[in-house]
């Protein structure tokens, strides 16, 4: 097991390197000169030159020991993310945004998973009946509405028109209040495709012979569903669920933008708009690490849940 883990961890190194390379290339080479923007409105050439000096933008890109890329790489490895465009340390911004983002994504995540897995079990059981077809139709319909429309409809009717929820984030509201509506919308929008997926997985399981045998042997429905079907369907479920976890940390870009929740998704959107390279590369780097780590966890869970799969 440890050998496997070590080998997988070694694999992550080229990937992290790849991510750093990607962010560097994208924003430095192709993105253009940010020093003019930092200099501001009435800037003279000498100010612009000074800025380039300070931010190290006048160093060669790749080919020396002190090149920009090497510095970028070194900084990432030591988790030194520097300061953002407005001179606040990037780490502070990330720490601040983590709370609200998690408060949004974690409830959505749990809500979607719990509801869709449970519903999938139920629907799988009543497959073929009108309920099943109805469920499928609703799912597909839900998948066909653009996410943005969900948000707009929800915000307009539930918050603005009917006043059931606050329309927007406001620092004096309790977190539970301003998070409630976005969470609701997030769950509603995400249910469709997840329910469909889990339903498919359940159905595949149910069609197996051993299920028929179990019913023939006289086991109750509940026992069959929970003890047998669910357990065996766990592999694809776990894969999907665990792989979604890294993305929880990034918040939901759209929901946060719309409801003004000061989380990481909002931070990211702002950073991209204002070309705040430091923030963007820091967050991309962190998300890449998380992704890689959780991939590893997924594989380990795989082997725990299914004895047939050995860690090769």
């Amino acid at each position, binding site marked *: 097991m440890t050998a496997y883990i070590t080998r997988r961890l070694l694999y992550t190194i080229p990937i992290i390197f790849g991510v750093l390379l990607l962010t560097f290339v994208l924003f430095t080479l192709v993105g253009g000169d940010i020093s003019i923007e930092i200099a501001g409105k009435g800037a003279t050439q000498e100010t612009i030159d000074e800025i380039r000096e300070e931010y190290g933008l006048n160093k060669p890109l790749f080919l020396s020991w002190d090149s920009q890329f090497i510095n970028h790489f070194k900084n990432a490895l030591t988790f030194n993310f520097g300061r953002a465009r407005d001179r606040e340390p990037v780490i502070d911004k990330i720490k601040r945004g983590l709370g609200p983002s998690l*408060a949004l994504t974690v409830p959505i995540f749990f809500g979607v998973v719990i509801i869709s897995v449970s519903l999938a079990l139920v629907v799988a059981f009543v497959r073929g009946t009108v309920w099943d077809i109805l469920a499928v139709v609703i799912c597909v319909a839900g998948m066909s509405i653009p996410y943005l429309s969900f948000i707009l409809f929800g915000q307009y009717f539930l918050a603005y028109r009917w006043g059931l929820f606050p329309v927007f984030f406001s620092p004096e509201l309790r977190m539970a209040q301003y998070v409630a509506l976005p969470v609701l919308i997030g769950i509603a929008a995400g249910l469709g495709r997840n329910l469909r997926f889990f339903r498919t997985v359940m159905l595949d399981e149910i069609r197996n012979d051993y299920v028929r045998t179990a019913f023939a042997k006289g086991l109750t429905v509940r026992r069959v569903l929970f003890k047998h079907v669910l357990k065996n369907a766990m592999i694809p479920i776990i894969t999907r669920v665990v792989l979604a976890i890294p993305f929880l940390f990034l918040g939901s870009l759209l929901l946060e933008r719309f409801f003004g929740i000061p989380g990481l998704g909002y931070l990211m959107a702002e950073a991209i708009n204002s070309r705040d390279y430091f923030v963007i590369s820091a967050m991309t780097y962190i998300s890449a690490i998380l992704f890689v780590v959780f991939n590893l966890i997924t594989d380990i869970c795989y082997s725990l849940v299914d004895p047939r799969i050995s860690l090769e």
Partner: protein
Amino acid sequence: MSVRPILLVTIICAALIIAGCDGSGQLEEPNEMVLHHVLSAKIKGLDPGNMRDVYSVIVASQMFEPLYQYHFLKRPYQLVPLLAEDMPQISEDLLTYTIKIKKGVYFQDDPCFGSRPAGSVPDGKGRELKAEDFVFSLKRAANIKYLSPNWSIFDNKIAGLDEFREYTKTCKSEADVDYSRQVQGLTTPDDYTLIIKLKKPWPQLCMALANTATAPVAKEAVDYYGRDIISHPVGTGPFRLNVWRRGSYIELVRNPAFRDELYPSVGEPGDAEAGYLDDAGKPIPFADRVVWTTIEERQPAWLLFLQGKVDATVIPKDNFDEVMGGAGELTPAMKQRNIHLKTFNDPSTYWVGFNMAEPVFGKNKPLRNAISYAIDRAKFIELFFNNRHLIAHGLIPPVMPSYNPEIKEKGYAQYDPEKAQELLKEAEKIHGGKLPTLKITLPGTNTWYRQYGQFLKRNLNAVGLEAEMEYMDRPTYLEKVNTKSVQIFTSGSSARIPDAQDLLAMFYSRYHAPGPNKFNYSNPEFDKIYEKAQVMLDGPEKRRLYRKMELIVLEDCPAVFLNHRVAYVLHHDWYKNYKPHAFAFGLSKYRRIDTAKRAAYKN
């Protein structure tokens, strides 16, 4: 493995997370006077030398005081001393200004001043303000390592300061700069006297010294906090920082070390009736706390205002009809809530500018004029600004002393599509063929800008011109404009001083991009008059010259001027002493709340 316990645990965890998080704001004590405001963007920092956005200035100006300030009530706008004892003594040749500093002004108490001697009583006072602090702040602005945006104010103005800047270029980092180096134009013969020597006459010096950006900063604070000084303001003003939750909430409290300052006893005619002199002669500030909440969307801020949680607000474009009835009056719903409306002319101008360096425009005056005739300014103001703004018939906005009341008759802002089409025929001849598709660059990608772009396109298409819009974010836009790679661009400017100098500087040929002259416009006659007026003190002759320059610009048409802003502000009945001021910041010290009225307000 049974799934149910896991489900149960996760549900409980989720519930705990949600319930446990509490983002509520501070509680108010019943007898406290608290001002509640909303900012529509995040503030970036509270260091006067590094103010890059107006929101930071709004907050920082309550804590930092410059030498001069604008009189709160008197109009036309005039400067009065704030940290200075008096208006400066100016030498005959207009080059030397002798300024006396008030005695007994203290920086707020702060760890950067070291620990107190044992046994002394804490009185909130840090160190006393000295003339040297002003010199330090100016040197800091000149320090190229510090990258202050204020340098453009002082560039090439004070004797010896540019040499100091050259010196700082040789230093390795900001901390290496030796501030004790002498600058011949900034001397302090004693602790309370400051002498500034200029290179050539600069009539707007006092206005620059009324800018929060030139407020004195304690060297101890800069040394102690380094880069973090943006979140540790140490000022002399009536308020001090209490809480700052970045990106959402900032709170200032009364500064116990603030000296005695009084509310003005004189104003302009009409102030007494309006209630602005009710507090004449009383010591300021009145408020115990000032609070700003950052809410970037208009709608929620509006709702908070209606609920009485915010004292004043602008009217969101989409709620205009529920606020304003016909004839510029408030609707009954607003009057019922005892909400007041104040309007004032914002000294700003917005335009569509041409890059004269592009041969398509630079040599083709009929084309530029045609575009000016093609744009329906009235419709623009109607669709985008609820008919609130004024059409810009010229460059200089009405608030300025040099505004020409007869500018409308000159007829530079007419909407005449037929005339435009005629002019286009001429333009084609000059161009030597069919006119190419014009490219218009706008500094934003949101709905507002896209609709703006579409509006311009429709106007141009209606006279037979083809146009293509380019939307980009601000940084890219600035880069393109600064590198002269745009054809037509939209922009605007809001004057910060009651002198049209800054607006006119945008047409001075020495300031081509990346300087303020983004139009890359050159006119030797204009330049001559500009240089002459630059060193004149304000007066009828100077205004005459300003108006002449304005007419030259209007005739040459390097830009099509669209509108001047008019601000409509609403405030609640309990918010006293709110008189709109076009240039001053730091006015929270004058505001007073009628706490009884606010408590009685029902939504």
